[in-house]
């Protein structure tokens, strides 16, 4: 789907095409401009992906950016501009770009195991093999295979359902993982646990993650880079590199440079939100 010849881009110094590239992308619905002239490039780093946090007030088109990468209508295709994934323009959704949503995350009629195996089932992987792999992933996202594999989503907590959704996406080894406020509905403790889980899994997955969030701490804590969007219409106004930290993630929360970045971002967002009446959810 995204296998067009790569380097139309003269700037590309390496052979590897960019993982995602937005070329002055604008999306309008009638009179309403959702995002305007959004341009950014996420390069391919061999053997390790990049974690991009997307931050901004409500209605700034954060989700639109994700949905354009995913190729989901009605946001796809862009009104003007180009969305490129691994050098090719996005034609529609596909399993190379997995997506984790905040709500309606599990197929309620399927057990945990069958939820996780959904993508493999669609690919025609034999039942026995997909069961094995699903169970492996159920364990990797911190669920108890014996206890939880045959449960239905209705029996799970919100955090457990998100674990299922993450396993269901990662089992297909997507090149890109799109997460639209996946932990937004979770309580703070569960949220923290999920963030740790995500850091662990992402390192192994070698995928590029786009993570939309309302939480500044979450954005800085998880991200290698933070993109800040302003609202109405959504534009990318700031990109920030988070310097790699040697210390364990838990301690990072108390590091001065971490707190400094959070303060700076909060300042940026507060200026933005002065124009927007209520940006909280």
């Amino acid at each position: 789907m995204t296998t067009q010849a790569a380097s139309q881009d003269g700037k590309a110094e390496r052979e590897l095409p960019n993982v995602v590239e937005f070329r002055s992308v604008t999306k309008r619905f009638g009179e309403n401009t959702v995002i305007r002239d959004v341009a950014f490039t996420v390069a391919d780093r061999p053997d390790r992906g990049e974690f991009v946090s997307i931050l901004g007030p409500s209605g700034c088109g954060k989700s639109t950016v994700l949905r354009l990468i995913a190729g989901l209508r009605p946001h796809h295709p862009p009104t003007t501009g180009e969305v490129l994934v691994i050098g090719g323009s996005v034609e529609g959704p596909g399993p190379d770009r997995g997506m984790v949503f905040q709500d309606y995350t599990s197929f309620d009629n399927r057990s945990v195991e069958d939820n996780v195996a959904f993508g493999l089932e669609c690919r025609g992987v034999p039942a026995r093999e997909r069961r094995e792999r699903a169970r492996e992933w159920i364990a990797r996202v911190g669920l108890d295979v014996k206890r939880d594999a045959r449960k239905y989503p209705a029996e799970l907590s919100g955090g457990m359902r998100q674990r299922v959704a993450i396993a269901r996406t990662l089992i297909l080894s997507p090149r890109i993982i799109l997460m639209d406020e996946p932990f937004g509905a979770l309580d703070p403790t569960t949220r923290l646990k999920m963030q740790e889980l995500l850091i662990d899994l992402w390192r192994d997955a070698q995928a590029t993650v786009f993570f939309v969030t309302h939480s500044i701490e979450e954005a800085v804590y998880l991200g290698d880079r933070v993109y800040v969007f302003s609202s109405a219409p959504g534009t990318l106004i700031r990109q920030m590199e988070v310097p790699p930290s040697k210390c364990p993630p838990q301690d990072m929360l108390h590091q001065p440079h971490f707190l400094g970045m959070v303060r700076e971002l909060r300042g940026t967002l507060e200026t933005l939100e002065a124009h927007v009446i209520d940006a909280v959810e």
Partner: protein
Amino acid sequence: MSEATQGTVPRRASSPVSAAQRSSRPPLFAVRAAPAPMVRRALGLGSVLLIVGLWWAVTFGSPEDRFVSPVILPSPVDVVTSFPTLLRERALIQSVAATLTRVFIGFGLAVLVGVPLGILCGAWRVVEAAGAPLALFGRNVPVAALIPLTILWFGIDETQKVMFIFIACLPFVYSDAVRAIAGVHDRYVETAQTLGATSSQIVRKVLVALALPDIYDSLRHLFGMAFGYIMLAELINAQYGLGFLLMTSQRRGLSEHIILILIIIGFLAYGIDRLLYFFQRGLFPHRALEP
């Protein structure tokens, strides 16, 4: 849960509070509060007993002295004691069997045609757009108005009765199936797409799989409606059937049989509904878990 208790207790801390107020259960008349199962059953039984009691009171005494004439309303005892004649002389069992057979076949056909059609149209809304005026028309034509046409088309025998049920139910079965499929949240479709599902996989594994419990549930309700329609069809040239029995009872002035058949219809409908409900829990175990 205990909002009501919290509201009353602190304000009246000094006065004694009854045990009922202390319990976590809200007061009986709190808005939307569900009464305990025992209370619920007692209330239901109570209202039935009240009606039977009133019935008994207005039809008390020898036929000449009654408040309501036995021709209008027979007494409960008259009704119960008329059961053997209904069963033996008027072939109740054959009539029940005939009615059920007609409903099962007619409604079964409506399901066989309407559900797949509804799934198709729910999944591809362009097809639905083409069928929308027909479905609207079908649901709004008064059912009784279909009888003359079905007689013209199918005669006055069994075929007409079955086809009448089929035609009367089809628009409803179809519309409910469309609604159930269309009601599956877009997020599920999008999730499936980003997991690599093809269109036909989305229809089978996501839309149908998630909508099936709702479709079944609405079929359960529509079956009750079909059961009501068959009475209409059985007023015309039927050999057996509950509708036929009702009509002949009225002609012969057997008011106790009329009441009795109405009660039997009630129990039959209830029994069938419970049976279908029982299967529903087995077919869709994930739904049984939901509150």
